[in-house]
């Protein structure tokens, strides 16, 4: 007798889905990060690279745009002596991911974190949102009640909610591990300095010696996401200019996905 249609039992179906998801996750982790684009502009008046006096310093200005074409704000970029990609290509798969630090978190907390765009619970812009979080997220509710019990002051209990937050690993562990990972990666690639982009997605590397460098975010933006690894030559200083080179870093349009790093 030939079956008319293929019938799966529920456990088999779940197992297949799990395998597929596992396979996707594994491929996402091991896939090489996508390359961010780099455009190096040399302002008028820049002299070609040549040996200069040891005390001469120059500057590089960077502007970074995300996949949506908007300035990429509050992201750290590194000036390196070596290529980040070449320094330790395998390390990207070992980069910490926030979901690894959510053990014991309620589904509501996971959802709240997913909606909020900060590495930790400490972004001051959250303060105005704690009152709502207390109503919907069990961990915030517990922290608030603990604060009320200690301080007998509702406003203070809300303001100091992170102090009494029950899951310490959720609060800052991801940040700490990420920072340590970045430090190590930067060291391997010959860290010169690092900057954080401002509201215009811009930043300066200043006081550097003319010569060859790489500029990178080191940790790919999103799992299997974008990695900038831009080779740049810092030219000798131009009179009346802060920087001798402008590097425009941009992401491939609308390709980033998954959890962010």
């Amino acid at each position, binding site marked *: 007798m030939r079956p008319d249609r293929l019938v799966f039992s529920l456990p088999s179906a779940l197992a297949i889905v799990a395998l597929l*998801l596992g396979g*996707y996750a594994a491929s996402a982790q091991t896939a090489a990060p996508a390359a961010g684009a780099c455009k190096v502009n040399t302002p008028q008046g820049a002299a070609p690279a040549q040996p200069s006096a040891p005390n001469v310093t120059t*500057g590089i200005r960077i502007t970074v745009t*995300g996949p*949506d074409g*908007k300035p990429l*704000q*509050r*992201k*750290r970029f590194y000036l390196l002596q070596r290529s980040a990609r070449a320094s330790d290509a395998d390390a990207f798969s070992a980069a910490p991911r*926030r979901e690894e630090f959510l053990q014991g978190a309620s589904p509501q907390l996971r*959802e709240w974190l*997913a*909606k909020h*765009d*900060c*590495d*930790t619970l*400490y*972004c*001051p*812009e959250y303060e*105005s949102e704690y009152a709502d979080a207390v109503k919907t997220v069990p961990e915030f509710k517990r922290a608030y009640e603990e604060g009320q019990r*200690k*301080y007998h*002051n509702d406003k*203070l209990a809300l*303001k*100091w909610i*992170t*102090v*009494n*937050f029950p899951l310490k690993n959720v*609060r*800052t562990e991801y940040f700490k591990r990420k*920072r340590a990972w970045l430090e190590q990666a930067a060291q391997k690639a010959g860290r010169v*300095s*690092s900057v*954080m*982009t*401002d*509201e*215009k997605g*811009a*930043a*300066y590397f*200043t*006081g550097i010696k003319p010569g060859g460098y790489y500029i990178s975010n080191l940790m790919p*933006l*999103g799992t299997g996401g974008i990695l900038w690894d831009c080779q740049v030559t810092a030219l000798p200083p131009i*009179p*009346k200019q*802060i920087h001798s080179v402008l590097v425009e870093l941009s992401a491939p349009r*609308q*390709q*980033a*996905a*998954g*959890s*962010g790093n």
Partner: protein
Amino acid sequence: MKHRTLTLATLLLLASAAFVCPRFVTSNASAKAAPAPQQRRGRARRPAPVATRPAVDYTKFSHRVAQHQQETCDSCHKTPSANWTQARDHEAAFPDITDYPEHASCINCHRQQFFRGARPAICAVCHTVVSPRTGGRFPFENPAGAFSKSEKAKGVQSEFSLNFPHDRHQDVMARFMPSFKAEGIPLVRASFEPQGEKKPVDSCSICHQTYHQQNKPAATPAAGALVLEDGTFKTTPSGHESCFNCHWQDGGEKPLASDCAGCHRLLPQGKTPAPPGKDADAQTAAKAGITDPFIIRKLLRRDSATFSHEEDKHQSRGCTSCHINITAISLLDEKTIKVPVLTCGGSGCHINPRPKKILNEEVGKREADPTFQCTKCHINYGKAQVPKSHLDAVSK
């Protein structure tokens, strides 16, 4: 007979002079050295000491005293102080160090000074009246508001500088995921998109907002008054209220509130955290009607006292357009806060030979007339020699 009487009188005179003069010498020397009676007795019994210990002024407390530094901070400062609920209004109150240490913190070493006479000098460290029977005290240095208005605050310079790792705090507030919409891959975690409209805070403005003077300058300022535009300054999180909500000892992040030295670093003798004044001084602040001690400190360390952050064209530029080192630094110090004059010339705003912009104009006027004072950006510096950075910026 007459001759004999005269000789006797002379001898008597010499003898009395020899007796009196050494006493004059001794008493003059002992008047200079302290404590006088002990030294005189010491001289009589044993050889004179090589050097005398400098007199200690017990009316002034210093953290720099070696013996004080040997103690941990919390051996004197209890966290929180018993009076924290009264130190601020109920709405603003939070556990904090808001009172002097107890007598018990001092008395083990200073018993002698505590019980010296009816008016022990050591009482003046905290008490308004030097007497064992009265309890009136000066306001404690924290909260700063009440203390800064008190008599004791006049001329007081902190012995500490603030150790604030700017980069670490920036990283704590780094964006987890940029605000772009993820598309193209089926298993997108779409929940990482930002939810709705957030209040417009980004990067620097998370912590630094425009400061609006409480006492706005009068429409027609009095003679001699200085008008600094509203929006000249940006705020900086200051005071324990900005720190303890994350660093409180009962579950917070290190350094904890009880670890004072985690943030406060003792300065070497003779150094003060606030500069005495650069382009502006304390009189400038008074003329401008600025009373907030934190804003005064900001004014004093400025190279350009009159620069306004809120001016239309300044607002539209990114913060790092001028503060080019601010995101690269680990600790805040003078060097990293400094704004190079070349940043004023971006797009030819303030530096350009044709049409002549303000820097070119004022430097030109100064070269023609040494008494000319630059006023566009400066107050005190406007009278000083034009620095090389400015001359280079306008050079052809």
